[in-house]
């Protein structure tokens, strides 16, 4: 049976189990003279039996599915003669692909080693077997569980508590997914990063000044062995983020101040949603805007002033990224400014301060932690922003701080290295995960600090 069909079958069995459990509790109720003599409502008895039927079997199914492939390939490998046994991960992947294609008929069997043909046949057989085994096992568990649940029923059974306990367990599991996600991210980047750092020393990665990840595919090939000094990427990322922040912080902050302190409710109700449109525009649209409109504009303006500007200047990407971040800063700043108690404003105004003096010398200092937190979050966004730089910044890893030059960023390199075919043993591909690890750690640090600062700030005025 196919997996999807099997799942449907298990659901049907659970529904049946619900029905039987419900009926049986009704039977108890009739004997005792009414539902009120049962511990729980009949639906809870039904649900309890359904859970006994469905939960263990589905869990079993998922566990088996997760390990099925690994086990099958282990078994296949053990049957393969030593002379073609793979020695590296690349060879292994190649071999597995070949067997896979032979089995599915995508590769013709002509001139293929008989050992491989055997393996392909074995693969088909093993797949078939495991599918049957799984179907049988799951059905057995479902039937057995359902029967057990049904058989152990009694009128005194605390069915509601049991069902609710499982329900709460499910809720806890869902909430804990956030932790598993973080763990998954960490594992996925750390695992590959460690492999990368076995090939390239970590000091070279962190402090090397040259980045050209093209490595020779075969050892006998001529050509660069690749250099993995990530400093140009870090510098490029910082340059573009810096340009973005010089646009976004003043514009975002001043518009937030104006909206919170000066604007009447009419202006506010029009301008705020209008600015929030900027926040809803997908980054790919900004990337397109930067690459096709802003970059040529800057290049032409620069050329007419006698400057040499590349068509993939850091300035274009940074500028557009800044525009993207304006509403982010403005809405965060708006929140923190509004959180400053009115008594602060009154105190300053009553001393004869003008409105701008009050804002500059009382409100902004009071809101500063919140504003700093917001800006840090914005920096973290700028560093992690991908599409704008992929489309508008270049690939050339220049070590420069000239905004009119082309620079590349961490995210651009991750995308470039991982889009298309990947070999998971070359330093080139693995370096993307090392960059991902850096990106994750830096943004995590920034977010953590920023969120703490903002939380502290909120508590101060609550």
């Amino acid at each position, binding site marked *: 049976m196919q997996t999807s069909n099997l799942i449907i079958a298990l659901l049907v069995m659970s529904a049946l189990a619900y029905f039987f459990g419900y009926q049986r509790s009704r039977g108890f109720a009739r004997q005792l003279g009414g539902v009120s003599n049962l511990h729980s409502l009949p639906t809870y008895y039904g649900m309890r039996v359904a859970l006994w039927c469905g939960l263990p079997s589905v869990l079993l199914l998922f566990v088996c599915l997760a390990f099925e492939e690994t086990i099958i390939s282990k078994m296949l490998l053990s049957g393969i003669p030593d002379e073609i046994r793979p020695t590296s991960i690349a060879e292994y992947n190649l071999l597995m692909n070949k067997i896979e294609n032979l089995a599915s008929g995508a590769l013709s069997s002509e001139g293929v080693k008989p050992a491989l043909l055997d393996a392909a046949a074995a693969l088909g057989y093993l797949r078939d077997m495991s599918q049957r085994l799984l179907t049988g096992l799951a059905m057995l568990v479902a039937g057995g569980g359902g029967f057990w649940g049904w058989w152990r029923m009694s009128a005194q059974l605390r069915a509601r508590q049991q069902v609710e306990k499982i329900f709460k367990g499910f809720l806890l599991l869902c909430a804990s997914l956030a932790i598993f996600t973080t763990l998954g991210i960490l594992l996925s980047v750390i695992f590959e990063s460690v492999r990368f750092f076995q090939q390239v020393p970590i000091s070279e990665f962190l402090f090397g000044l040259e980045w050209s990840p093209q490595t020779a595919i075969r050892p006998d090939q001529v050509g660069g062995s690749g250099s993995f000094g990530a400093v140009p990427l870090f510098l490029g990322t910082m340059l573009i983020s810096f340009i973005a922040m010089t646009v976004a912080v003043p514009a975002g902050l001043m518009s937030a101040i104006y909206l919170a302190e000066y604007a009447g409710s009419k202006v506010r109700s029009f301008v705020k949603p209008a600015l929030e449109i900027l926040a809803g525009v997908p980054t790919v649209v900004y990337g397109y805007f930067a690459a096709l409109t802003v970059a040529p504009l800057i290049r032409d303006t620069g050329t007419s002033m006698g400057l040499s500007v590349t068509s993939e200047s850091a300035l274009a990407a940074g500028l557009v990224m800044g525009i993207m971040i304006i509403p982010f800063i403005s809405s965060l700043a708006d929140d923190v400014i509004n959180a400053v108690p009115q008594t602060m404003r009154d*105190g*300053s105004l*009553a001393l004869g301060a*003008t409105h701008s003096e009050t804002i500059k010398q009382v409100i902004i200092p009071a809101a500063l932690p919140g504003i700093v937190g917001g800006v840090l979050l914005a920096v973290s966004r700028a560093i992690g922003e991908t599409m704008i730089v992929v489309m508008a910044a270049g690939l050339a890893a220049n070590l420069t701080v000239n905004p009119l030059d082309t620079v590349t960023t961490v995210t651009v390199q991750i995308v470039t290295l991982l889009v298309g075919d990947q070999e998971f043993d070359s330093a080139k591909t693995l370096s993307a995960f090392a960059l991902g690890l850096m990106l994750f750690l830096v943004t995590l640090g920034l977010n953590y600090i920023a969120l703490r600062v903002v939380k502290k700030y909120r508590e101060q005025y609550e």
Partner: protein
Amino acid sequence: MSALTMNLTATASEENSFDSAPEQTVVEDTVGFPLVDDPKIRARNASVFYGDKQAIFNIDLDIGKHEVIAMIGPSGCGKSTFLRTINRMNDTVDGCRVSGEFLLEEDNIYGSKMDVVELRARVGMVFQKPNPFPKSIFDNVAYGPKIHGLAGSRVELDEIVENSLKRAGLWAEVKDRLQQPGTGLSGGQQQRLCIARAISISPEVILMDEPCSALDPIATARIEELIAELAENYTIVIVTHSMQQAARVSHRTAYFHLGKLVEVNETEKVFTTPEHKLTEAYITGRFG
């Protein structure tokens, strides 16, 4: 009381007919003596509206020089609103409109020539809840002189801060920790800091909006002493919920009821032999 010359002869009704606004007939006349000679602040036919709602109804009141006048009355009676008209703090409230004549000595508070910055520098204010800025103690007091450019040098500024803190009776307690945040002080200290902040720019009038409502009795007693000392140099208008406090600190007491000024009299008189039934009912605790 010697500095005050009560205009004992002028009754409220005579004054009202003098101004003769038509709708005034519906307003209950103020009893006692609301008017004085050569007042610091003069309010005539004062009304305040929030949108369509009228919060203050045609009030006539004079506040004398170096007088401490207390405003009492049940919640929502308009006493705080009236207080905030004097330094135009109501300007910041959306939809608030003020009518009538308000004079600070000879200057029209709501006149086109009156600059609100200058007005508020001349009429200081202390709020219900202590609201020190999130700055150091020194900077809290130095804020006013700094923005108004009153200190020519650092030495002068130090002097102003020290004097203000001394007059607010806080100097001894904070002189060794001037650079620590003002928000770290106790409630009573914070309120005295706010008073120091208010007097740092040498105002002529200090408005106090229930300055002790957030304080414990001991801190309250300190502030009340301070008010008595400050009265030598400033005109003080204090809104209070506590009749005892009004009785302790003020020279005259004004009783507000539902946006109307019911009675103004010497404090002793208000609390011993009130002229108006409503005043009597309020001070004897029949409502509040």
